[in-house]
């Protein structure tokens, strides 16, 4: 009996030591223009002083995976180390003509569309690599879109813990209740990444999310 208890105790102590020091790979997923990069930038700026990438009103600004290592976040006497992974927005269609409306030349628009298709494929490939995922949605838009359902469905199928961020609460059409109604089984936190609104509650939810990861 004692022979069994001692090794178990030692294993548990060592496991917990390494567990506390491990790095959480945190992915930012969502449709284009939902504010993934703005939120990733906000977190990076809060804890490292740098930004991660460029945010823009033109969809598919992030067309390559952006990573930020060693981001240490402190919240209520607790500390966690993250690797942040900002991903290109997932879409089911990409038409270069949509970018022309934002003043891009035909050549630039075609290039952007081509890079965006590659970005979507990369985002999906990276799903398997994540420890936890933040799904960033624009709370002023319809949350029932198939892309949102597909992303959340895939994370559930892969047993990856999910936190849903209803972003852009500073916009007049924002409706957090609608996002909560669309995803009743998940934690939903309403924020404005751009204005820094409700960020403390976001960090609270983030720490709760990490508790659920493997």
């Amino acid at each position, binding site marked *: 009996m004692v022979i069994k208890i001692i090794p178990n105790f030692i294993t548990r102590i060592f496991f917990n030591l390494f567990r506390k020091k491990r790095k959480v790979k945190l992915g930012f997923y969502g449709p284009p223009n939902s504010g993934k990069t703005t939120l990733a930038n906000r977190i990076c700026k809060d804890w490292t002083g740098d930004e991660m990438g460029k945010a823009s009103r033109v969809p598919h600004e992030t067309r390559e995976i952006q990573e930020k290592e060693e981001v240490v976040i402190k919240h209520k006497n607790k500390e966690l180390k993250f690797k942040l992974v900002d991903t290109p927005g*997932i*879409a*089911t*269609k*990409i*038409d270069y003509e949509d970018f022309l409306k934002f003043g891009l030349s035909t050549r630039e628009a075609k290039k952007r*569309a*081509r890079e965006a*298709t*590659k970005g*979507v*494929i990369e985002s*999906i490939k990276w*799903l398997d690599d994540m420890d936890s995922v933040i799904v960033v949605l624009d709370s002023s838009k*319809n949350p*029932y879109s*198939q892309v949102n*359902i*597909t992303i959340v*469905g*895939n994370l*559930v*199928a892969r047993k990856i813990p999910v936190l849903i961020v209803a972003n852009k609460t500073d916009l007049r059409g924002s409706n957090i209740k609608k996002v909560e109604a669309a995803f009743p089984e998940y934690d939903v936190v309403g924020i404005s990444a751009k204005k820094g609104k409700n960020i403390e509650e976001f960090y609270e939810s983030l720490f709760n999310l990490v508790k659920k990861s493997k």
Partner: protein
Amino acid sequence: MKVSLQFIPYAEIAYLSSYQRVKKLISTVSHDKILLIQGRLRPEEETDLIQDAMKKIRKSRRFKGVELATFLPKNKNLGFFKGVREKIASAIFGDRDIFTVVGPATIVKEIKKDPTKLELFLK
């Protein structure tokens, strides 16, 4: 403008592998057909469909991707025994009460849904 709507019964895709199922859907949609599929794709098949759509956009000048929606009719109040029977039937024969619509983005601009109806907005 003529729009072609093709119905795919569950039996037609039930025995295909995920790979074959996604290929069949992308190939049919790229011929400007809107598909009404009995049943639904698995989450992994939906992402495979998106990835294949992206690859096709890169290869084709005309193809712009897909519009996709899964329609789950509001649950009827079946009572306990009928409910259990329905669940067993779904487990064996698939979710045949659910419908999936896949259309080419060159024709379908948007799909809106609520528990009782699906609306397709065409270009």
